[in-house]
């Protein structure tokens, strides 16, 4: 009887210990690089991509079990602690989000964990608005972007704390648009082994929501898994696992349109973007294994704490209080 409270207390202590370690793991490489760059001569350029690789490796490790894309952690952390301009950080953030979504895509589609007919119309809405977001993002002054990014990141953390989830939402009546588009199917739940028929509702509202999500993704370069999944699951009634998989497909298409805009405007520097992508991809592979050792909910709490820290830091940097 007493075992459960003791186990909970252990988990709490473990998280309490893990949080400062996690923050240090992300801040230390940047601080070390800062010190090295200040003390050494100009040839210390390589310290920064190396530090970026280490940070992204760690971010990738925790992003997968927490169920968020890497971009949402990457932009505020790298934008706050590295010397790169926000334009380049957002460009790299988009590439990180897109690369992760592309890599996951084939197996999600083959295993039926993503549905293309569900993703395509929503991705079209998000692709159009993400270009608009990218255009505004590159036109705004860096401090304005930083303040609004800080507010958005804190909002994402609040969403992660408060948003409910519904494993298999009950949709009594599909809306006429989803019927016309043929958005329905049968989903095999891997845990129970049962086939679950699904359909969606509120498709017009979903399209409007994905216009907004795409705009924010392009503006801040943060990807949009954090908003896609609750939008698909809670608003449109898509089963949770199918929502997570289809979110990845939407993200891969919407991020592409914004990435092209950043690339054409010279806002993607390979020296920043490539180590970030490689670090994140390797970290994500280890993160997938972490899921078998640690509870996803524990990592999720850790990510919320990191987002709160990064959101406050980004906002204060934008306000010129903590440079």
């Amino acid at each position: 009887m007493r075992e459960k409270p003791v186990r909970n207390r252990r988990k709490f202590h473990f998280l309490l210990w893990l949080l400062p370690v996690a923050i240090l793991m992300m801040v230390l490489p940047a601080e070390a690089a800062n010190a090295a760059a200040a003390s050494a001569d100009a040839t210390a350029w390589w310290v920064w991509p190396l530090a970026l690789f280490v940070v992204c490796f760690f971010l990738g490790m925790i992003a997968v079990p927490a169920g968020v894309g890497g971009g949402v952690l990457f932009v505020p952390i790298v934008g706050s602690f590295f010397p790169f301009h926000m334009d380049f950080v957002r460009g790299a953030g988009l590439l990180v989000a897109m690369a992760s979504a592309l890599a996951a895509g084939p197996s999600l589609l083959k295993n039926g964990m993503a549905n293309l007919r569900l993703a395509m119309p929503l991705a079209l809405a998000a692709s159009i608005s993400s270009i608009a977001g990218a255009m505004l993002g590159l036109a705004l002054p860096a401090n304005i972007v930083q303040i609004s990014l800080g507010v958005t990141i804190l909002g994402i953390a609040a969403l992660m704390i408060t948003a409910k989830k519904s494993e298999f939402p009950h949709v009594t009546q599909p809306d006429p648009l989803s019927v016309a588009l043929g958005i329905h199917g049968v989903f095999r739940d891997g845990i129970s082994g049962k086939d679950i028929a699904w359909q969606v509702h509120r498709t017009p509202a979903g399209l409007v929501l994905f216009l907004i999500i795409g705009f924010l993704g392009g503006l801040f370069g943060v990807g949009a898994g954090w908003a896609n999944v609750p939008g698909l699951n809670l608003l449109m009634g898509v089963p949770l696992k199918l929502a997570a998989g289809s979110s990845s497909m939407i993200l891969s298409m919407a991020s592409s349109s914004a990435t092209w805009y950043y690339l054409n405007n010279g806002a993607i520097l390979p020296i920043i973007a490539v180590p970030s992508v490689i670090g994140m991809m390797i970290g994500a592979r280890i993160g997938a294994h972490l899921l078998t050792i640690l509870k996803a909910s524990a990592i999720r709490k850790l990510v919320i704490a990191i987002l709160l820290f990064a959101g406050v830091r980004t906002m204060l940097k934008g306000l010129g209080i903590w440079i």
Partner: protein
Amino acid sequence: METERKHHPEQLHYATVLHWSTLAGFIMLVATFVAYVFGWVPSYVPLERLPQLWGLPTSEYLKATGIPTGWSWLFMMGKGDFASQIGIAILSGCSIACILAIMPVYAKSRNTTYLVICALEIAVLLVSAAGVFSTH
């Protein structure tokens, strides 16, 4: 139920093209970047100069380095920093290739709705890729 659970044919087709195009993109990305940072190919902006430049906004960075925007980098592939962009461009173009690949499937099944959605998505991605909205 079993027949209903079968994936639409275009979904598997999309997955196959996505797998191979993404793999090609990642291989190019890593190979060109390694050649760039290890100095196996010369770079347009010297690597040692980057710490003085990467803190600038994009517009000032482009002015300071004289780097052209749009697709001009394709003609400067001999430089490591531009060669590294080929992997990024392939990854950004994966969705275009995948959608183009599934359009014949929709055409064959006379699914006009999704054929139009695919055409619109391709148009959006191509307009963005062509740099129609580029500011510099």
